[in-house]
């Protein structure tokens, strides 16, 4: 069987019941999706399957013959970041970074279906993802900025909602 990973056709040797996460990470060496819980609970393994965000840890690869898979590596490269990646950098939306690829793909799917900067809608779209560094505020701000079509200056970061203004507090 074959799947298309970030535009490249890949022949799969693993058995059909192997999880897509295992195939990506261990057979193909695509390590952007993370094994956070392998129970579908945390969202760190999320990839796009034919454009929809899916938990790769719960998907047997046998169901995916011919499917188009997009991982974080397929969103953009360091020299050519997708807008949502730029938004995450500029808005300081990644702390340890382990949950980030999952959040990015859920956010990309949200933007692809015409999502706006409506806070409640963004929370709904990202609701299946866990960030333990407690970066939700900045993640939501980043997705909203990407939805508005902001441009991002990557040499600096956006002031946060709770940023102290110089001289405002001693």
């Amino acid at each position, binding site marked *: 069987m074959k799947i298309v990973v970030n535009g490249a056709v890949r022949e799969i040797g693993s058995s059909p019941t192997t999880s897509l996460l295992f195939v990506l990470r261990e057979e193909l060496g695509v390590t952007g999706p993370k094994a*956070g819980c392998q129970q579908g609970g945390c969202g760190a393994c999320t990839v796009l399957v034919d454009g929809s965000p899916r938990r790769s840890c719960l998907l047997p690869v046998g169901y995916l013959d011919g499917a188009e898979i997009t991982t974080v590596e397929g969103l953009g490269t*360091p020299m050519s970041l997708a807008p949502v990646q730029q938004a*995450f950098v500029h808005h300081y939306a*990644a702390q340890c*970074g*382990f949950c980030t690829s999952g959040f990015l793909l859920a956010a990309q799917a949200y933007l692809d279906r015409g999502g706006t900067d409506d806070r409640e809608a963004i929370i709904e779209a990202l609701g299946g993802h866990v960030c333990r*560094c407690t970066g939700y505020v900045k993640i939501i701000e980043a997705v909203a900025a990407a939805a508005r079509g902001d441009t991002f200056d*990557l040499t600096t*970061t956006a002031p946060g909602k709770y940023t102290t203004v110089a001289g405002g507090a001693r």
Partner: protein
Amino acid sequence: MKAVGARIPRYDGVAHVTGRTVYVDDVRIQGTLWAKALRSPHHHAGITKLDTRPASELKGVHAVITHEDVPLNVYGHLSALGIPADEPLLAEDAVRYKGQPIALVAADDEETAARAVDAIEIEFEERPALLDVRKAFDPDAPRIHQWGNWYTHFEDEMDRRQIRKGDIDAAFAQADTIVQGVYRPAAIEHAPLETQVCQVVPEANGRLTIYSCTQALYFSMGVVAAHLGVPLNKLKFVGGTTGGGFGGKVDTATETMTSLLVLKSGKPVKWRWTREEEFLCSSTRAPWHMEIADAVTKDGWILGRRMLTLHDSGAYARFSPYGLTKHSFHHTGAYTIPNLAFDGYVVFTNRVPTTAMRGFGVTSVSFAVETHMNRVAEVLGIDPFEARLKNANRIGDTSPNGVVYTDPSTVPTIQAIATAIGHELKSDYRAMTNEPRNGEWLPEHLVAQIANPEEH
């Protein structure tokens, strides 16, 4: 000083958003074996039989280790400070918490390793478990640790962390009323998205390369070297990329046992905990039991505090004596109380050993102190902001352990909170600063504790 106050992009931000950051689990080493642990299913039990041969004989299994394979099995996380060791790397004749590792297997893949763990023959003799710190001191409580049910090796072999300051009896004799409270924050699992993981590689020059998710690289290096009985230059640690830690990756969880599997098999080995293991037996923030009694005046001065803390250390000491010590130094919070009697115990239970989490030992006592401050204000019928400002640390005040404050921030912080939530402060509280106490802010009971910050 171009960086101070500037909004600088994260140095690793672009790598994080492009999947280029290499976490330990992303390191790719040809021919790596997978590790799995046989863990205790009981809170407390004796081990009456342990036979690992059925596991060793399975196809695809390259190494099985027990405590007999560890050059120095018992080594404490605070051993380098001269504190006696109590925790075996791999259980010997007893297990003291559910999930405690007893044996490890390295095999061709995760499934084979799991089958091999199942094949190990083991029998237990269950013993009564102690799970509540409040019962540890009962005469009929099960004795669960070789030192008894609490840690006995503070300075001068004291069995508690004790602070005495001023004249506590006089403070309670002078009080208008006594305000008491009991505070019991629960254990918290750090639950980082990246579970405990390491990858160890045997190098041609005889060294081990250890890819580690530790938050404390050189500390872990010392722990591994001590257990293995090798000098530090035999270990090359590669760290710095942690998929969330929050204190839970300060204890050395995987590196030593994985290194032993490498030494026995001669092959590279990876050990990645499952989410279930992370919740079952990775260290947690401790549950704490704190009892406070304050001697207070009717206008809101705290003359004295008696406090008892029971710090649930879990089955072994690890860093708990250090955490309790920090806790004791902060037991008046951001406030100055001149007369103190604090007793804190590191209590052993049959729970997973507890550890640091975001303000080791201090978050618990801050919760208790701030909640108690509100209680004092409520009992006295005074404004809780005023109660805080009145007792707030000022320049020249001294902490429970005698540190002289040179620039304490309690006053401006409380004032800023009042402003932020629209709480109206009386003019004398609005005008208060952290300058040395004088006038109405220097009542008689605080005079003796004042020191000259210039001399410190």
